[in-house]
């Protein structure tokens, strides 16, 4: 069992409490989880607790199951055995509406940054608000601030196909956090950007973590992990031989 204890201490109170999570409750909890696709078992005997406010990296070779792991985290997949609890609820017992509601508390940055190509960037960023029935107009100021924060103000009316890879990744991050979720799961958020841009994205994620968000970043960019370790107390998990391990000082 990998216990995440790196809830940041700040002025004596944990940021997790600030984030509104009940004390001691983990946001996401895996218990002897195994998952297999038709091709055979990909993950087995994975146990893990993500404490509120923790910062994790997830690494492993391509095809080792990082994306699969994240999908298990937000209820897009149900484990073949074992249990995954999302905010204390077993995903197996959640109905489709429960999953939809839980996803409003989890921001996901997809590996291939999925957008609706017929909507402008601004509308895409506001999509989580739209589908949850919140008037996007009410949050217009919020939206503007967020776009400024990821440096996309000038591109607000652009259509997704017109965006560069880095712009798409910043946009995906902005969309993931517009609902002010408790957890942010980012799948290769720096996959196709240069070093400088990846540093900027990392800084954004670290800032979010300082606000109390639980962060999990899947990446095989070891440079990124090293850069992060200087700024934040992060744990590195590695998928190796279908198991999840805590990576040591070799990084």
């Amino acid at each position, binding site marked *: 069992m990998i216990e995440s204890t790196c809830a940041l201490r700040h002025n004596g109170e944990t940021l997790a409490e600030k984030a509104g999570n009940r004390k001691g409750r983990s946001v996401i909890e895996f218990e002897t989880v195994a998952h297999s696709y038709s091709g055979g078992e990909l993950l087995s005997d994975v146990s893990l607790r993500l404490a509120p406010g923790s910062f994790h990296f997830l690494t492993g070779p391509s095809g080792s199951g990082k994306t699969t792991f994240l*999908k298990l985290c937000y*209820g*897009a*997949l149900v484990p073949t055995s074992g249990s995954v609890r999302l905010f204390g609820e077993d995903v197996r017992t959640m109905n*489709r*509406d429960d999953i*939809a*509601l839980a*996803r*409003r508390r989890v921001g*996901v940055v*997809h590996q291939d940054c*999925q*957008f*609706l190509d*017929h*909507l402008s960037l601004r*509308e895409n960023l506001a*999509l*989580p608000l*739209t*589908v*949850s*029935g919140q008037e*996007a107009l009410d949050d217009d100021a919020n939206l503007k601030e967020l776009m400024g924060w990821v440096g996309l103000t000038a591109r607000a009316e652009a259509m997704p196909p017109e965006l560069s890879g880095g712009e798409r990744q910043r946009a995906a991050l902005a*969309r993931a956090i517009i*609902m002010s979720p408790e957890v942010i799961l980012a799948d290769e958020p720096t996959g196709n950007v240069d070093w400088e841009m990846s540093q900027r994205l990392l800084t954004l994620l670290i800032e979010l973590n300082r606000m109390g968000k639980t962060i999990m970043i899947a990446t095989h960019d070891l440079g990124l992990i090293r850069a992060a370790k200087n700024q934040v107390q992060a744990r590195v998990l590695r998928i190796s031989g279908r198991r999840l391990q805590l990576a040591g000082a070799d990084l």
Partner: protein
Amino acid sequence: MSAFQSILDFAIGDAQAERAVPPTGFTVRLTVFSAGAMAFLVVFALALSLAAGRLADRWSDELARSATVRISAPSEQMAAQTEAALNVLRTTQGVQSARALNLQEQRDLLAPWFGPELALETLPLPQMIEVIETAQGFDGDGLRLRLAGEVPGAVLDNHARWRAPLVAAAGSLRLLGWLSILLIVLATGAMITLAANAALAANAQVIAVMRLVGARDSYIAQAFMRRFTLRALGGAGVGTLLGALALMLLPSASQEGGFLTGLGFQGAHWLLLLLIPVLAGVVAFIATRLAARNTLRSLT
């Protein structure tokens, strides 16, 4: 929230949700077309049913359990033979009442043919007796034999009998009309289901993104249902209008009320036309809802 309010909300819709689902192209056009064609056909099937129904009702009402006995006899025997025939009829099983028509009634019957000026008194007219049957009816052949024996100048005309098959045919025609409407509705439902399925499949990626950012199934389904329902409503409105116009262009019903010329709608039946687009809307609503429910369940 009242049902009316929910319908109103559904019709007004959510502009944002509407934008989130991209234009559904040919599938929506297919829906408009099938709803329109269906409505056009339903107008005629409905007109057929209603006209056949009217015909069946009129014939069976007018002729229900009625028959006529006609007595042709030299005028000095007329009264005696009429009395004899009435006696026979009164003692016949299955006859409820029998009554000799008076001169005025006979004049009214003949007026359409010979005009009101006719001097009936001078003509050797047969005497008519109106016979009303009981529900069981009488045995026509038996009565004919008895009349032949006792009243030489009497002829029984039980027209209800020969018209009965016509009434039955009109009844079947009405049934066929309703059956056609049912089949048209089912075919339209199937067509819209296919169209909605195609639209949902074409938008699997859009739906996946919406699910990813926390959209409920009902939110996604609503966007599709609203689109297909409103288009079906519109298409069927146009189809109904064209069908009604075509019906109005048929030659108007003449006095004799031939079957074909009586094919239009009458009075309040015109209001039934308003139900056709509503029916199309309901069919589209249900079809899209089922299609959406099935598709969404297969996505994470």
